[in-house]
C-alpha cells in the first residue's frame, strides 16, 4: 500500500467570515506517525472534523485511506480510530459499557485486546464515566480508539490528562502501531508531546499549514530555553557569542538563555560559574515558527534578527546567532 493515508488539497472551511481552515494541502504517508501541531484555535480540530465528515468543507477536497472524504465517509470511519479533543462520554455508562457500546457499533472487537489495552494503560473500566478523573476518561477514549486496530488513528490532543508514565505507555503503543504498518495522525499544541514519536510534523497556524518538516529537522531549528540560577551574580556578558545562543538575559544571579541546536556549548559556558538550579523550558510553537521563518527567509543575512535582549551582546559587538 503506497497511497497516502491522508491527502487533502485546498481544504477550506469558513465559519462565517472566519477561515478556520484555509487551503490546507496535507499529505500523510501510510505507516508514519504524523504530528499535527498548532496553537489552540489554529484549526487542528476543524481539520480533523473535516476528515471525519462531521464538518463539510467550504471548498477543497480530500481522501482518507484512498477514499473520498464526502462520498465514502462510512467506509473511512470503519477503518479509523478517533479520539476527540476534550473528550465527552456518556456519564451514566461505566467504562466497560462505554467500550462495549462503541465495540458493538463497530460490529464487535476482540475483547481480549481491550483488556490488554486497559491493563497497559492501567485504566479502570468498572465505574461510571461521570465518576472518573479526566485522566481515566481519556484512557477509555484511547482504548476505544485503539481497540479495533484501525488502519489510521486520528488523535486530537491525546495527551491531555495523562500522567507522564501513561504518556510513555501511550507513546509505545503509537510506535507499535507504526511498526504494524498503520498510520497515526496526532494533533497537539506542544512540540514536546509529539517530538519523541512523530516522524514528520505539520504546523498549522491561523488555518494555514505553514510547515511540514521532519521532526529531527524541526528540532534542530527549534529554539529552546534554559533558566539558570547562580550562587552569586554573574557577568551580563556571560553567554555573549556562545555558539547556538539566540538571546540571553542576565539579571544578577539569574540568567535566561534561548538557544538552538546542541545544548553542550551553553552548558559549558553556564558551568563556568556555580549553578544552583537549572530549569528547562519548552520552546513554544510561536518561537518555532519564528525560527523557521528566520532560517528560511534570512539565510543571506548573517546578522539575522536575533530579538536579542542581552545588552552585553551588542556592547561587545559579537552577534549571537
Amino acid at each position, binding site marked *: 500500500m503506497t497511497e497516502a493515508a491522508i491527502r487533502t488539497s485546498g481544504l477550506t472551511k469558513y465559519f462565517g467570515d472566519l477561515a478556520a481552515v484555509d487551503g490546507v494541502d496535507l499529505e500523510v504517508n501510510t505507516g508514519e506517525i504524523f504530528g499535527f501541531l498548532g496553537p489552540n484555535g489554529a484549526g487542528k480540530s476543524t481539520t480533523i472534523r473535516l476528515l471525519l465528515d462531521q464538518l463539510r468543507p467550504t471548498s477543497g477536497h480530500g481522501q482518507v485511506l484512498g477514499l473520498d472524504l464526502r462520498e465514502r465517509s*462510512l467506509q473511512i470511519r470503519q477503518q*479509523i480510530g478517533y479520539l476527540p479533543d476534550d473528550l465527552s462520554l456518556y456519564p451514566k455508562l461505566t467504562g466497560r459499557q462505554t467500550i462495549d457500546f462503541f465495540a*458493538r*457499533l463497530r460490529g464487535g472487537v476482540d475483547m481480549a485486546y481491550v483488556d490488554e489495552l486497559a491493563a497497559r494503560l492501567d485504566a479502570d473500566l468498572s465505574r461510571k464515566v461521570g465518576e472518573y478523573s479526566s485522566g481515566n476518561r481519556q484512557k477509555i477514549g484511547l482504548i476505544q480508539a485503539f481497540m479495533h486496530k484501525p488502519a489510521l488513528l486520528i488523535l486530537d490532543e491525546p495527551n491531555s490528562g495523562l500522567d507522564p508514565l501513561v504518556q510513555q505507555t501511550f507513546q509505545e503503543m503509537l510506535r507499535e502501531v507504526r511498526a504494524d504498518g498503520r498510520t497515526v495522525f496526532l494533533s497537539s499544541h506542544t512540540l514536546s508531546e509529539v517530538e519523541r514519536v512523530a516522524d514528520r510534523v505539520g504546523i498549522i497556524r491561523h488555518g494555514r499549514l505553514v510547515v511540514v518538516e521532519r521532526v529531527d529537522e524541526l528540532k534542530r531549528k527549534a529554539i529552546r530555553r534554559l533558566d539558570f540560577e547562580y550562587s552569586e551574580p554573574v557577568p551580563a556578558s556571560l553567554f555573549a557569542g556562545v555558539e547556538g545562543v539566540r538571546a540571553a538575559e542576565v539579571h544578577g544571579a539569574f540568567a535566561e538563555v534561548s538557544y538552538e541546536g546542541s545544548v553542550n556549548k551553553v552548558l559549558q559556558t553556564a558551568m563556568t560559574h556555580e549553578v544552583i538550579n537549572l530549569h528547562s523550558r519548552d520552546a513554544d510553537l510561536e518561537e518555532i515558527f519564528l525560527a523557521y521563518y528566520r532560517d528560511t527567509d534570512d539565510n543571506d543575512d548573517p546578522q539575522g534578527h536575533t530579538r536579542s535582549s542581552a545588552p552585553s551582546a551588542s556592547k561587545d559587538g559579537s552577534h549571537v546567532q
Partner: protein
Amino acid sequence: MSNELLAHELRHRRNGAVVLGLVLAGYAFFALAISGSLRQTVDNLTKNMPQSLKAFVGSNVPGGYIVGETFTLIAPIALVAYAVIAGSSAVAGEERDRTMSMLSAQPVTRTRILTAKACGLALSLVAVTALFWAGMALADLAYGSPLTPGGLAAGATHLLFLGLAFAAIALAIGAATGRPGIASSTAGGIAVAAYLSNAMLPLAGMGRWAELSPWYYALGSDPLRNGLDLPHLGVLTGLGAIALFVAVLAFRRRDLKG
C-alpha cells in the same frame, strides 16, 4: 448496528419514561377513583354552561370533569411536554453534551443515528402512554365508570399520536439547529399556542380555525366516547412524518457541533 443504537437510546430514556408513565398512571387511577363522587357536584356547577365552555372546562366527556381534566389537560400536557423535551435533546442534546463527536465518528450514517433516536423517542412515548392507559383501565375495573376500555384506549391512542407529532417537530428543530434550547422553546411555544388556539377559538365562535391546531386532532373527535378517528390520527401521523423527513434532510446536510 442500528439495533445497538436503539438499545443505547432506550437505556438512556428508560428511567424518565417509566417514572412519568407511573406518575400519570397513579394520577389517572386516583382521578378516576374519586370522579364518581365528584361528578354530581361538578355536573351541578356546569349544567347551565354553553357547550363550548363545558368543552373548555372538560366536563362534557364521559366520566365528567375529572376524567375530562385528565384527558384533555393533565395527560396531554404532560405527554407533550415530555415529547418536546425528549425530542429536542434527542439529536441536539448529544451535541450540547459533546458526545456527538464520538458517536458520529463511528461507522454509522447520520440517517441511522437519527432513525434510532426517533424510534427510541417513539417507543418511550408508547411506554408512557401505555402506563397511563393501564392506570385508567385498572381504576375503571376497580371502581367502574361510564368509560369503556375501548374508549380509554382510543383516547390514549389519540394522545400518543399528539405526543409523537410534537416529538417529531422538536426532534426536527433540534436536528436542524443542533441546539436543544432553541428546539424545546420553539416546539414548546408551538405546542402552547396550538393548545390555546384549540381551547379558546371555539369559545370565540371561531371553531373552524381550531382545526389548524394539532390538539384538535387529538381531542376534537372526542375519542373517549367515539373511539378512534382515523382521519384525525392520519393528520397527526402526516405532521410527524413531514417533521421527520425535514429532520433527516437537515441533519444529513449540516455541520455537526460538539
